[in-house]
């Protein structure tokens, strides 16, 4: 990569202390989503936020980006409190969110910091398009490119400002399985070129295992339902990247994670489903009833 990559800001440390967020519930009242989140993210680290749907992963990500404000606790980047729409971080959303009337190139340039010199900006965008392998699609409109290409453009847009923290909200979730694997490798390439701190929201255990230095598991305390999610555990993956997706140690971690998420593994009978089956046989009830089934997180 050319030397001009040096325009990226140094990776920043993220610290969260007792962070909580409550939303007004539909039909009145308040619904706590997050509570007592304490987390320190080292500069340049890749963190995966993992948890079932609706556990507040995206909310936490938005709080770190300053797109939303916490009701409790303190959030800081390198010791300075996070401002509203903090420009030290950049986000790639779940959907590409490209402006349909702009070319890919002009969409990426939207991410440049305000007041970037025009020529400098053009060079930076060209370089980023090479980095995400879109140099041949620069003049196309978003509707003319595939979902994977649009998502890469969204990634390039986030990188355009040289963020100290890169926030990724399930950026590959809507892509097909093969494209997703390619995108994960691409993200690691980018991370070695532009080593920002990365916070990645995902519901894909394998994605977390492939990419993250540490995996933060979010969820509610089963003993206190309705109090909001918090950090249930933090797993250190402790393997150098790139990782072999078939690595045995990762397989063990995967089984561990799945169990913590309450999902049956394919090899061992799960005690939850076993217990349920027994109970149903006793009652003689229809086996497809969904009301008595505990909500199971969708992990894949």
């Amino acid at each position, binding site marked *: 990569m050319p030397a001009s990559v040096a325009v990226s800001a140094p990776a920043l440390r993220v610290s969260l202390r007792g962070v909580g967020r409550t939303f007004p519930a539909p039909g009145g009242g308040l619904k706590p989503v997050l509570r007592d989140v304490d987390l320190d993210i080292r500069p340049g680290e890749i963190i995966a936020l993992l948890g079932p749907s609706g556990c507040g992963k995206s909310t936490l990500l938005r709080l770190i980006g300053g*797109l939303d404000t916490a009701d409790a606790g303190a959030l800081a980047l390198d010791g300075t409190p996070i401002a509203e729409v903090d*420009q030290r971080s950049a986000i790639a959303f779940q959907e590409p969110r490209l402006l349909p009337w702009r070319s890919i190139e002009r969409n990426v340039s939207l991410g440049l910091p305000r007041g970037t010199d025009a020529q400098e900006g053009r060079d930076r965008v060209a370089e980023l398009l090479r980095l995400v392998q879109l140099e041949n699609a620069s003049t196309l409109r978003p509707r003319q490119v595939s979902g994977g290409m649009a998502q890469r453009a969204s990634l390039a847009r986030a990188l355009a400002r040289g963020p100290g923290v890169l926030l990724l909200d399930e950026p590959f979730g809507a892509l097909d399985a093969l494209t997703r694997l390619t995108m994960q490798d691409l993200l690691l390439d980018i991370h070695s070129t532009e080593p920002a701190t990365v916070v990645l929201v995902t519901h894909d255990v394998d994605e977390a295992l492939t990419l993250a230095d540490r995996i933060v598991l979010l969820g509610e305390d089963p003993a206190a339902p309705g109090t909001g999610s918090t950090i249930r555990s933090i797993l250190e993956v402790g393997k150098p990247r790139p990782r072999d997706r078939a690595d045995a140690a990762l397989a063990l971690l995967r089984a561990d994670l799945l169990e913590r998420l309450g999902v049956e593994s394919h090899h061992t009978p799960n005690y939850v489903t076993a217990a349920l089956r027994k109970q149903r046989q006793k009652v003689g009830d229809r086996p497809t009833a969904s009301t008595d089934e505990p909500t199971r997180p969708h992990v894949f």
Partner: protein
Amino acid sequence: MLPAGSRAWIVTGGLLVPVILVVVWFTISASGLVPLYRLPSPQMVWDAAIDMVQRGLLQQYAAISTQRVLFGFGIGAAIGITLGTIVGLSRQLSILLAPTIGAIRAVPSLAWVPLLGIYLGIGEVPKIVLIAIGAAFPVYTTVAGALRHVDRNLVEMGRAFGLSRFSLLTTVQLPAVIPSVVSGLRLALAQSWLFLVAAELLASSMGLGFLLIDSQNNGRVDRLFLAIICLAILGKLTDGLIGLLERWLLKHWG
């Protein structure tokens, strides 16, 4: 038969129905089924046109009417876009202004005529003001409605990338509503011609509306037909201008 969708077919196809209408018209007036003082022949209307052109009246009338429409439409569209932007973007200002604007819009347009007459007399100004009133509301309604429904995700994206309120408007919100703005402008232009005729029917000494009322008073049915045909042609031509604007806008923002 010309190939379907080719340019030549689009032009000839569009002219087919008017040509048939003229033929039917010619046949009826030639057959004597309807007396000529009620339905003049195409030839009589043509002669009336030549006569008025030779006396320099037709082009003057058409020019003054078009000028009134364009001024009134321009001013009204600008007001409509401004008000629509304000009400469409700000929840607070919408609460404050939208009911009042809605009430003013509900006033039948011709109700303004006597008041405009007293305040502004009978010159060009009251006519242009009346047309502007007629043009402003369709634009206001479409712009305000469209801005309220701009994809929230795109707006949030713009905010996340540090766009100020103004750049958010010019970069995300206005381009997103261009198709609605254009259809609002289309409606507004049609309204402008409507209000032009209303204004000229009531008080004027020039223009196509004046030609209508003057011909009615003199029993010149041929000139009545002429005025109506002129309005149809001018209306279609100005609508074509909006079509060009639309194509240009969509090429850059679509």
